[in-house]
């Protein structure tokens, strides 16, 4: 089990969902960010006629890499080593953390700056660094907020999405040396800049992730907007990269195709402010840059994903579009998922990390509306994967007895058409009695949902009633 989940909320998924639904602030905070994200992505896609062919090409580039992953891993390793990088391999999360801590000890580092990396979160690196007694400084603004609040990221692009502006201002007033004098977002960003600059300048070790690993040069590509990645990777004596093995691409041109897709899908921009390729340590005559450059290549379940039949998951660019467009994520937020990766992609991957038994609720908490796959820039069949996990969970007998019984009851009714139609007709009538306008604002047995949100009132008739009526009309 990845170390990051050691402090995962012990409560069950249902309890976490109930807590999330009962928190009115959370819904406001999620909506403020995901609505903007959806609008900006849509505009960016509409602005680029080549999006559809590029998406298809991006998918095929990723599939080509997955089919030849061992080839590209070896090629990358050879070129990275030639550039002066030290390449390490880790099969599991804890192995990866051990390698990083070991490098920190050997290089006698104390202050460690980190730029945001989902792989780092996945392997539980923040905790491992703290436990090793290192002075960890998160430099991405959102990760800085998460560190001050002592909580966990709730989104892969906007990790602090669950915090409202007002809460962040309060947090900064409490922790910053020269805090912002207003709740204005600009003042808050300036305050974080002041606060973090000395840490950048004084760090011994900088740790980053990777958006792409370029096989034909051994370079590591990071994609950011704040400029914190370059300050993190240039100033300290040692730069350590932790990256999943699926981040490989054959060459620069392939990376650019995926970059266009990634950035538009994530933030709606065409490119981020900073796209940097790091190749080896400081070279002779260079004015800045680290003396040592380490790359830790991590499997942690990736080869298992191939074995489990979900190798398409390795196409994932970590853009976050699937969660921004997910009706479930938008109601419950990222923490309720319990794993490091929330939303549809999280629900598809967490069973590999935590085992299906512990996470079988996640694939079930999905409406299978297909939106996630539609917006995914590399066409990952997320609904199919989630359905696959449900089937596995059923086949392995992991579903609770009462669910099995209810489903049995349903199967009994569904195979008897008149009984089924009678039952659904009754249910629709009952639900409509509760609704006003198009919505139901108070639903017995589902008050956790309806306290802060409405439930759509069902149509006046069931599908079969409507069908029969139309049929009768036609016959007349």
């Amino acid at each position, binding site marked *: 089990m990845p170390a990051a989940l050691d402090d995962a909320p012990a409560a069950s998924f249902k309890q976490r969902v109930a807590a999330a639904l009962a928190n009115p602030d959370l819904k406001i905070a999620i909506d403020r960010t995901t609505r903007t994200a959806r609008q900006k992505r849509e505009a960016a896609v509409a602005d680029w006629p080549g999006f559809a062919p590029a998406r298809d090409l991006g998918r095929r580039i990723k599939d080509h890499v997955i*089919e030849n992953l061992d080839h590209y891993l070896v090629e990358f390793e050879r070129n990275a080593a030639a550039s002066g990088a030290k390449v390490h391999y880790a099969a599991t999360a804890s192995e990866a953390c051990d390698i990083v801590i070991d490098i920190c000890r050997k290089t006698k580092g104390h202050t460690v700056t980190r730029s945001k990396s989902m792989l780092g979160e996945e392997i539980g690196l923040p905790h491992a660094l703290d436990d090793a007694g290192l002075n960890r400084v998160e430099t991405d603004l959102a990760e800085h907020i998460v560190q001050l609040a002592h909580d966990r990221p709730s989104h892969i692009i906007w990790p602090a999405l669950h915090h409202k502006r007002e809460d962040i201002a309060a947090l900064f007033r409490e922790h910053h040396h020269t805090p912002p004098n207003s709740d204005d977002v600009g003042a808050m960003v300036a305050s974080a800049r002041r606060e973090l600059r000395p840490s950048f300048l004084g760090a011994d070790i900088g740790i980053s992730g990777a958006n792409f690993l370029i096989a034909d040069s051994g370079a590591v590509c990071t994609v950011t907007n704040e400029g914190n990645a370059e300050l993190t990777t240039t100033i300290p004596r040692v730069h350590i990269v932790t990256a999943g093995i699926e981040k490989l691409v*054959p060459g*620069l041109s392939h990376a650019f195709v995926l970059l266009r897709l990634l950035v538009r899908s994530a933030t709606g921009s065409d490119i981020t402010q900073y796209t940097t390729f790091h190749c080896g340590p400081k070279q002779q005559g260079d004015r800045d840059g680290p003396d040592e450059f380490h790359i830790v290549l991590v499997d942690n379940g990736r080869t298992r994903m191939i074995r489990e039949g979900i190798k398409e998951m390795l196409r994932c660019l970590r853009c976050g579009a699937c969660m921004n467009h997910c009706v479930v994520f938008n109601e419950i937020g990222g923490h309720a998922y319990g794993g490091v990766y929330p939303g549809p992609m999280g629900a598809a991957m967490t069973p590999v990390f935590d085992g299906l038994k512990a996470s079988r609720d996640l694939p079930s908490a999905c409406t299978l509306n297909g939106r996630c796959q539609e917006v995914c820039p590399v066409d990952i069949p997320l609904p199919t994967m989630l359905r696959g996990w449900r089937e596995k969970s059923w086949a392995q007998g992991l579903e609770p007895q009462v669910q099995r019984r209810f489903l049995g009851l349903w199967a009994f009714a569904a195979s008897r058409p008149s009984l089924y139609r009678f039952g659904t007709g009754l249910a629709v009538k009952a639900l409509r009695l509760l609704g006003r306008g198009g919505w139901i604002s108070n639903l017995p047995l589902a008050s956790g949902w309806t306290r802060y949100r409405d439930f759509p009132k069902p149509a006046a008739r069931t599908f079969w009633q409507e069908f029969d009526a139309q049929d009768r009309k036609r016959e007349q």
Partner: protein
Amino acid sequence: MSVRDDILTAIRQSLGAPAKPPGAISAESTALAAESAQSRPELPHADLVEAFAARLTSVKVVGASVDRIARIEDAPAAVARYCKTHGLGLALALQPDPALAALDWNGFELHAAISGDEAIAVAKARWAIAETGTFVFHSGPASPVLLSYLPMHHLCIIEADRILGHLEDYAIAEAGAAPPRNVNFITGASGTSDIEGRLVRGAHGPAFLHGIIVDPGLSEPKSS
């Protein structure tokens, strides 16, 4: 067996197919790279200088402005113009590039080492990319990385014949060359949307980016 070999074996076994010969893999990879020409975004102008300038000043690039000069010798005057507009002094960090050092910086207070709270840095970019409005820097003895990240105002000089069309053109232009420690693609000023998705500039890097295009085709300097 080492962890490395375990992973390589696990990959091959999980895929359940034999490895392809390297020649076939590289042929496939070359074909995929070539295909990207079909989906690249269109440039707003056929002329690369115009396309780049238009892009740089569009809403798509955060916090950027542009000036055009006919000769590199006019760069100090363009820098002075920018400083005056923004009410800045004339103390700045200058990239230790021989071509820049050879210019007449009379009236400026120059330093090569960049400080943690530098106000202005002036540097010559290696390439620019019209598609995205990007400046490309390679780290090296004459080009420290931090010049692009520590200052509040980042002034980038680019010669017209170094402006490329698309991102892939950079890959073609540098094909076969030994890569530097850092290749930095810089598109506008630093920014963040981490608080409620609202964009604020000047996160950790510069809050302003100013492009100075050296275009011999231009007789009169013009600003926008």
